[in-house]
């Protein structure tokens, strides 16, 4: 008797409802949401978008990828996926911010914005009431725009128009007797943004920083336990609980498009996973140009992908600090956020320098990750993560640029902690991160990328679908919701 002949040829899998590409926080959130709704989901963890494990940059000192702080985590995702049960926790909430000005003065901005007035009083008695009213008003406006920032419909114009069109300068200049309060707000708005505070529509960026807090999320700026990885691990557990199948492969060849619909994913060896629904959390160029191909996309749509993006970037430097920090103002309280707020002209100069290719940043944000996670540094020592902005975007292999960043980082650290005698035993910098586009442009880009490809069953929640800085999960939630609606309406049958 002969054995039944095995069928040769590539493997084709069926019976799958949805494929999610990319194990980024948004991809994981979308996968878990779809699976919880009863869909059979396969998540493909592929090269781009994979977060590395923390790395040892000096002996005994560790640095992690990504932003150690979160301000705008989407509450609907946290609730729906029960992320707190899956291990999401904060090692610090409502972090206060110690702002250092160019003249050496300091302002301690509290984690609870309701106390902003009292904090300002320490700097300038005359401005206390005014500053408190300003912050309160900002939070109110931010709250009304929260849904828009996270991918919802634009608010009625009357409410948002004024806020949307103003520049930061337009909103704050001349408001306070002490111009250092302006410097603080300007620094907050500029951090990570490609538009300088004098440009129109930048006030939105400032509002967006408040939106998470205003919506009553994790309480202002928070440090996630375990950093970016902590969040990913919680999301992974949520995926496992919802029976998402996770596969690791770098061999995705493309998305199968049949007529105007996606029909699955194809791999280099010819294997296929057939599914009527694909959510992609990979960058837009990978998702569309590589996986779908220009020949199947509208000219106008691919043009949006080809538009040059800002050359302004931020760069994060890591310090290994050997021994205690003796600065009286920083002192033993390292579980805070420190912000260097330059004078107006210095910030303006920094933007100009960045555009010309230099690394002479204006704003700096300092966090001590080891204050939240003791395992990142040896006992009695600390790691410091310093975000410098704006700088030119250059590869790490550019030695001159590297040296310039190192000098700028040390200078900024010295200005943030003027009294400290720091023993720096290690230094490292991350790849420069391109600055976020102006928020209106980001919202418009998100709308174009998520709606306009016209491919049925293909849902995008990659990095370009995010608005503003920081991890938020709302792009993943929105993509998941749209995909689910499409699935339920049977658009694929």
């Amino acid at each position: 008797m002969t054995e039944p002949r095995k069928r040769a040829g590539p493997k084709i899998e069926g019976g799958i409802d949805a494929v999610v590409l990319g194990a980024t926080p948004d991809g994981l959130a979308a996968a878990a949401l779809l699976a919880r709704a009863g869909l059979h989901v396969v998540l493909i963890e592929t090269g781009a978008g994979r977060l590395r494990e923390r790395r040892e940059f000096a002996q005994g000192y560790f640095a992690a990828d990504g932003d150690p702080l979160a301000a705008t985590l989407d509450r609907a995702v946290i609730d729906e996926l029960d992320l707190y049960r899956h291990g999401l926790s904060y090692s610090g909430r409502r972090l206060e911010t110690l702002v250092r000005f160019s003249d050496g003065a300091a302002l301690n901005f509290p984690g609870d914005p309701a106390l902003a007035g009292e904090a300002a009083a320490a700097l300038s008695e005359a401005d206390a009431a005014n500053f408190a009213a300003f912050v309160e008003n900002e939070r109110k406006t931010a709250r009304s725009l929260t849904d828009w920032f996270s991918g919802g419909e634009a608010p009625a114009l009357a409410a948002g128009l004024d806020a949307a069109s103003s520049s930061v300068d337009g909103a704050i200049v001349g408001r306070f007797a002490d111009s250092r309060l302006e410097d603080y707000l300007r620094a907050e708005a500029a951090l990570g943004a490609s538009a300088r505070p004098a440009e129109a529509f930048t006030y939105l960026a400032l509002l967006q920083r408040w939106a998470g807090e205003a919506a009553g999320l994790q309480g202002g700026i928070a440090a996630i336990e375990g950093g970016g990885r902590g969040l990913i691990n919680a999301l992974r557990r949520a995926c496992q609980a919802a029976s998402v199948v996770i596969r690791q492969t770098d061999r995705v060849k493309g998305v199968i498009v049949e007529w105007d619909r996606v029909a699955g994913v194809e791999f280099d060896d010819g294997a296929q996973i057939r599914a009527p629904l694909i959510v992609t959390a990979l960058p837009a160029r990978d998702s569309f140009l590589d996986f779908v191909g220009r020949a199947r996309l509208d000219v106008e749509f691919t043009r949006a992908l080809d538009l040059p993006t800002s050359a302004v970037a931020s760069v994060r430097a890591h310090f290994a600090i050997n021994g205690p920090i003796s600065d009286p103002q920083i002192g033993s309280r390292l579980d805070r956020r420190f912000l260097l707020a330059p004078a107006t002209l210095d910030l303006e100069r920094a933007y100009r320098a960045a555009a010309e290719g230099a690394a002479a940043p204006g704003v700096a944000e300092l966090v001590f990750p080891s204050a939240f996670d003791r395992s990142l540094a040896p006992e009695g020592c600390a790691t410091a993560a310093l975000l410098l902005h704006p700088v030119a975007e250059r590869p790490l292999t550019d030695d001159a640029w590297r040296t310039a960043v190192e000098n700028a980082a040390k200078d900024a650290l010295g200005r943030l902690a003027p009294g400290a005698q720091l023993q720096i035993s290690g230094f490292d910098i991350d790849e420069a991160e391109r600055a976020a586009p102006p928020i209106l442009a980001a919202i418009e880009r998100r709308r174009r990328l998520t709606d306009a490809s016209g491919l049925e069953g293909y849902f995008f929640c990659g990095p370009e679908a995010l608005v503003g800085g920081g991890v938020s999960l709302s792009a993943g939630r929105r993509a998941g919701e749209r995909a689910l609606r499409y699935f339920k309406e049977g658009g694929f049958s």
Partner: protein
Amino acid sequence: MHFPAEDHVAEPRPTPLYAATAGLSATNSWTSINGWASARVYTSVAEEYRAASEDAALVDLGPMRRYTVRGADAATILARLTTAPMNELAVAESARGLVLDASGAVVDFADVTRLSGDLFLLTSATALDRRLLLAARGFDVEVNNVGAQVAALGLVGPGAREAAAAAGIDVLSADASAQGRVRGVELAIRSISFGAAPGVEIMYPAEEALVIWERMRRKRPLPAIGVEAIEILRIEGGAPRLGVDFISADHAVSPTQKRLPTEIGLPHLAPPNRVWFNGRRAMKNAASPGQYLVVLSVDSDTVAPGAAVYARGEPQGRVTSSAFSPRLKRTLCFAEIEADVLDRSLEAATGPLSADRAAARLHETAESRQAATFRDGLRAATESRR
């Protein structure tokens, strides 16, 4: 193929054939199309029209935009940019199509000819440089605007092919175009339909403009035809004119000004079941048309553009262009009318400011026959699938 609306360039450039056409112009009446000088009338509209509808007439096709697209991906980007059936196009064949934007609205007309394996000629009514560059990004293809480098001589009328053959330029069949040499001049020849009239288009280097022209005229002193007589042929044939009967989607200032292929009566040029082209998905999902561009035959000697079209006593549309057809002895006009009054009895005002109305009815043209056949085919295909 036909010209877009005239523009108002004070001193239009002479086309490569200008030296020849200027010599034939008795009226010295010129206009500008795409910035090129075009004769409005050479001798008289009636004579030119008669020659083109009974025998053959020469037309300077210089004002059309011409591009060569060369490279391994040339067919791919033309299939992406235009609705012409590129996959089926053999060497020496031509196809008509439209250029659509991402919302499925008509941007331009496109005539594509495959000159060789990876070399295509694209003719359009308006400038497509930017669109071509955007569409070509990321592909192995080279796009050149050759408008100023070639002379394009058209022969329109039932006797066009014979007239070309008499001059030693042989067009083999209705669909064939060819590249060849006549007296040392390199030529590309293709058949075209210019409005209602069948025709031949001969393209060759601008420096040789007069050589072929003279050769053509020496065998038979054919008259030349100007824009005004062409306009009659165009409306008889049911070919809408860009910028006159509808606006290019690229020039529309609001989405309501954009027109889908079916709204301008050309659904057969953008079949939704053809392989993917720019705007196809949006076109397929677009709401059903609110208005249609149709050709009406009006019981009146004059109907001027801008005049209202009435149905049930209410204004339901407007005339966009009109002409008196000497052959049909009737006034024909293009009119855009509301979709829901298509089957009603219609009346057209005789002028934009006139209170007089005349009965009007849908007029069947070569183009509308093709559209009807296409719609029937599509309907049959949909029903058989059910």
